[in-house]
């Protein structure tokens, strides 16, 4: 099984590098967009340190996101991520206010403002913790499928994953929420990360993409049967 994955990795790597080569030759047309093309490396095969758990999880998550967005042409909804970014930005804003106020009015005149900022900061930290534990719940993608007729509300696909520390079992869960009936269906798989990465740490999309498609189709076909 590992040998088959390595074979797939070599052919996948070859296909990836030829794609990158054609991309760079197209970029010589206009210099400004060419620089941006050279910066973005969407076509380059993902290569990470295979012993770094968080890098492995991030690369698997990003690739699953790419499959859903590019292959099935769903639209990503940034609401959840934006909420977290807003809370963090407000917390940093309180910290900056405290810093500048203390610099302008030296202690102890700044005591009340400082106390207010410190308490607000830790309250925001609490809100952030509650938000990530209960609202976000390790979901890293919320995608909408726009209804072609334009009448019914969108169907929502949610991806969430987990990879325990020092463990090799990666669990990916796909949740489908129908726009019309508001019903929720889930499918998940748990596999060892060794099935998707080769010896050098390159993610083999040929082994990973069928898994995602299988999850997706298992949820989609149920809908068609209804």
């Amino acid at each position, binding site marked *: 099984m590992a040998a088959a994955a390595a074979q797939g990795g070599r052919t996948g790597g070859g296909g990836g590098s030829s794609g990158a080569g054609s991309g760079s030759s197209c970029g010589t047309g206009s210099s400004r967009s060419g620089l941006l093309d050279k910066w973005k490396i969407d076509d380059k095969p993902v290569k990470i340190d295979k012993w770094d758990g968080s890098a492995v999880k991030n690369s698997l998550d990003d690739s699953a996101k790419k499959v859903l967005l590019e292959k099935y042409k769903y639209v990503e909804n940034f609401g959840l991520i934006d909420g977290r970014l807003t809370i963090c930005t407000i917390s940093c804003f*309180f910290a900056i206010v405290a810093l500048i106020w203390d610099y302008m009015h030296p202690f102890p005149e700044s005591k009340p403002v400082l106390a207010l900022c410190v308490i607000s900061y830790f309250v925001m930290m609490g809100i952030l913790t509650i938000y990530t534990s209960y609202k976000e719940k390790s979901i890293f993608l919320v995608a909408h499928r726009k209804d072609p007729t334009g009448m019914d509300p969108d169907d929502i696909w949610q991806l969430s994953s987990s990879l325990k520390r020092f463990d090799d079992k990666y669990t990916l869960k796909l949740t489908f929420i129908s726009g019309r009936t508001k019903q929720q269906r889930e499918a998940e798989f748990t596999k060892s990360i060794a099935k998707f990465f080769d010896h050098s740490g390159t993610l083999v999309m040929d082994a990973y993409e069928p898994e995602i498609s299988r999850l997706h189709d298992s949820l989609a076909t149920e809908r068609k049967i209804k």
Partner: protein
Amino acid sequence: MLSLDFLDDVRRMNKRQLYYQVLNFGMIVSSALMIWKGLMVITGSESPIVVVLSGSMEPAFHRGDLLFLTNRVEDPIRVGEIVVFRIEGREIPIVHRVLKIHEKQNGHIKFLTKGDNNAVDDRGLYKQGQHWLEKKDVVGRARGFYQENRSVKDRNYSFLTLGL
């Protein structure tokens, strides 16, 4: 042709992820800053944790010890207590013991300090013409200290003491 492989992770991120990385770093810095400011508010001192820089308080405090200070208005300064004070015009605070206090009816005090390990009191350190310290010079009073394990005793770092 740029071939900086270590930047690959950054190049793969979209705008939101980049902003989140910046925010993450900002949050770490902000947490440390807020804890420090919070300590300042709770203790009432502008520098709640200081490091002993010289050996002028041996054998009580040695170089490198951490001192925890408070500066509450309702705690009066008494003889024998260890205070951290700043002399006008000098940046670095000094940790010494209170030797003498003159106190008025309205609570205004002036006091004299001396380091335990020094032969004379601190009048030589004060500003030209200043003979007493006042409440406004005080950074805080020592409430607790933390001493690290000293495996090599009496290491000489006198080139760092700056004459304190």
